[in-house]
């Protein structure tokens, strides 16, 4: 196996074995979806109206939960030094870690979303749009999140500052993602919104490995 897939496979294995960060994220996601109707009331028309936005925000927050550990574990036990000296460039290291994070959280959240859409009375067409938008948009969450995780990797309480850093940067993903669902609810074409979302994701996935690698390099020099 190439070094890239070796690292990817190890990170997924670690995520699966350390008490399931995916399970944690999914539970959090489901809990948000339960609390919002308790907060705003059980009016099914209202719930359908806000469902796309609520589930998008819930998914982003749920994906954040495990992000602060993306580089931190490897930094603390010395693995990051060793990875940096391996033939794998740090940019690809960052990409592998983003991909592992997405597979263990973003993809799982996307798969769960149709079930939670039921709680919000979303019609089938809107549910499909929600599913597609999460599929296209959650990679951006992992990618932008990786930048935040690399910037805060040496901080003991990095998890506190991480959301403040990356949530404003992720606002376009929430806007396009939830917007696509709104458009579908109004029986309008959501293709444009999904296209914008895909473009944002692609840009984030292409550019953030460089920012994350620069930031990891900076932290190894400490």
């Amino acid at each position, binding site marked *: 196996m190439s070094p890239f897939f070796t690292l990817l496979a*190890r990170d997924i*294995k670690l995520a699966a*074995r350390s008490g399931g960060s995916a399970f944690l994220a999914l539970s959090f996601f489901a809990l948000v979806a339960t609390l919002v109707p308790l907060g705003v009331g059980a009016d099914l028309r209202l719930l359908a109206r806000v469902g796309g936005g609520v589930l998008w925000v819930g998914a982003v927050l749920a994906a954040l939960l495990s992000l602060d550990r993306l580089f931190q574990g490897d930094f*603390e*036990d*010395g693995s990051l030094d*060793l990875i940096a*000296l391996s033939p794998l460039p740090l940019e690809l290291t960052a990409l592998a870690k983003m991909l592992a994070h997405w597979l263990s959280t973003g993809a799982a959240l996307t798969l769960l979303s149709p079930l939670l859409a039921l709680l919000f009375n979303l019609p089938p067409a809107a549910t499909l749009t929600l599913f597609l938008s999460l599929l296209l948009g959650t990679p951006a969450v992992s990618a932008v999140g990786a930048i935040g995780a690399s910037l805060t990797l040496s901080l003991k309480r990095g998890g506190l500052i991480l959301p403040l850093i990356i949530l404003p940067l992720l606002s376009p993903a929430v806007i396009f993602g939830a917007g696509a669902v709104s458009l579908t609810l109004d029986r309008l074409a959501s293709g444009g919104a999904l296209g914008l979302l895909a473009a944002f994701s692609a840009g984030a996935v292409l550019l953030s490995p460089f920012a994350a690698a620069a930031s990891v390099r900076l932290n*190894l*020099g400490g």
Partner: protein
Amino acid sequence: MITSLIAEKLACARGDRRLFENLSFRVKAGQALAVEGANGAGKTSLLRLIAGFLSPAAGRLVVQDADGESDDAEERGKQIGWLGHQDGLKPQLTVAEQLAFWAALYRGTTNSAVLEQVGLQRQADLPCRYLSAGQKRRLALARLLVSQRPLWLLDEPFAALDTSGQALVAQLMALHCGQGGIIIAATHEPLGLGNESLKL
């Protein structure tokens, strides 16, 4: 294959503090260099400098091989076998998985003989969380072997090891030098390789 590592008037600064300056040395293939000094003198920083994690405040590091010489930190990093303070082990992975991971990442080779060499063949399927500090250190040594790098940078290689473990480190180091490798070790104890030493 590296023929020698040369430091020319190196200086290292951390924040406002200068750790060392005007440091020059030369280590040839098959030789070892012990770096000695009090805590905080900059032993670990020197190793991190050689590894390319830190950049020197002044001076340069040159690697010579059959093709010529280079002071590129990135290139140098690809020659380095690193044994730091921490062992770089995950509690959730077994000894064999751990070693296979590092071997694949470093495009090295792994075989059961390596585990035998460091005395961990019986623990191969045990998750690392159950290993003692000394056993973890032995696994880190196995990782160093499978990485197959010519330039070893060792930070306190004898730490956390019992007498037989220390003998193992000495034996592995002698073997590495015998095969034409280079060792630079930060240490409080003599390496026992007939090596030179550098006092920071």
